[in-house]
């Protein structure tokens, strides 16, 4: 058999076969966003993941989706995903009930640079559901607090009712050397927090360029403005990392659906140092 066919056989036989998991519980975060906790269907615990990675979740008879892992990277008994219900398969996923079977492949992809960030301030900038792939990094930093300087979390969402992980945001804000600020695009009179775009929160942050690593995840237009703001404040592009999203199908760099310039988002990403994708970032239809 030719080598290419052998490789194809290998990929088809192992990487593309989902492992069986069971839904342990489903937690409602907002009116359209839910957090699913999956447990292995057998006795073997999950193999672990690095913050920023994703899995392919398969709703049997419905479809398969790439979903970022939003749980604690040191909890191998569970695998946690935060999903916004926007289509047929995500709707089916968030409608799961405890005990339902979900197929899972992965974890896949690159991860946040938490080793590089050691000894530095970590600035986390999240927009909307973009906080979900960043939460494992926050869990990791809080578990290894002495390895990092300040933790700064800036979070923007559409409205107060779109903010996810609200209780955790409050809990993190009370921790020493941790600054957590949230803002919404539209707020009613009962909202006591900030109103305005997430870049407006930078005025409350004492940023130390060259001693900070920035981890950014949200809508691409938000990330562009965040990057411009950080560069204007003296942050070197090499210290900026972002999580990108494209139409992923196989999750292993095989099908080519998520090609981005010379990279595949699923295999080379989803986490990229900004300087690696700078020339393509923001380009129309790329």
């Amino acid at each position: 058999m030719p080598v290419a066919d052998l490789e194809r056989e290998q990929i088809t036989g192992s990487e593309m076969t989902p492992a069986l998991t069971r839904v342990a519980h489903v937690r409602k975060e907002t009116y359209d966003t839910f957090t699913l906790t999956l447990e292995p269907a057998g006795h073997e615990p999950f193999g672990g993941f690095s913050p920023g990675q994703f899995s392919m979740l398969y709703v049997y008879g419905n479809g398969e989706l790439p979903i970022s892992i939003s749980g604690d990277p040191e909890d191998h008994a569970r695998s946690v995903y935060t999903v916004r219900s926007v289509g047929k398969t995500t709707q089916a996923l968030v409608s799961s009930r405890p005990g339902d079977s979900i197929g899972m492949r992965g974890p896949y992809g690159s991860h946040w640079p938490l080793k590089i960030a050691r000894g530095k301030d970590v600035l986390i900038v999240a927009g909307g559901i973009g906080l979900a792939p960043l939460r494992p990094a926050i869990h990791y930093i809080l578990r290894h607090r002495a390895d990092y300087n300040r933790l700064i979390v800036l979070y923007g969402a559409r409205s107060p009712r779109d903010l996810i992980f609200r209780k955790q945001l409050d809990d993190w804000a009370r921790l020493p050397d941790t600054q957590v600020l949230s803002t919404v695009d539209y707020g009613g009179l009962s909202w006591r927090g900030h109103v305005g775009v997430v870049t407006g929160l930078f005025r409350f942050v004492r940023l130390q360029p060259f001693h900070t690593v920035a981890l950014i995840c949200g809508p691409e237009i938000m990330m562009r403005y965040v990057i411009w703001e950080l560069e204007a404040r003296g942050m070197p592009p090499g210290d900026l990392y972002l999580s990108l999203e494209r139409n992923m199908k196989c999750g292993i760099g095989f099908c080519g659906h998520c090609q981005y310039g010379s990279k595949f988002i699923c295999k080379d990403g989803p986490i990229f140092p900004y300087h690696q994708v700078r020339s393509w970032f923001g380009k129309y239809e790329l």
Partner: protein
Amino acid sequence: MTPENIVNTLREHPFLQGFAAEHIERLAAMASEVNFRKGEMIFREGDESSFFYLLLTGKVALETNTPGRIVRIVTLGAGEELGWSSVTPSHSKRFQARSLETTHAMAFDGVRLQHACEEDCQFGYTLMTAMLRVVAQRLQSTRLQLIDMYSPVPAKAV
């Protein structure tokens, strides 16, 4: 606050970064210290208020009334500016400003600011450049809010 303290306070304010010492002194001579209680309305929509404020502490919300509800457009805090329209010919306020916390600010009469700009073009250019930076930043933020970038379904032009 003594005149010297006012000068020092203004020198620290981000809006006045890059201003020459004599321009800051000129502004200090026009500045008056103001405090707003939590919940106090600083101005209302349609008011002929001509004051420009540099916020020192506290938090202010810019709001607009729509039928049946009040929409909060933006919140402003220490180091920011309120009432940039006071240096434009029309002083009629388009939004209402509400103090959300005890707020401490330096206030400047917009008419006096405009006269100062006419008398000293160098001062006027510096002030208007700083003002334009504020307006551009607010415009950019407003555009981003209008895009509704967190929406799960991207808006399409018809």
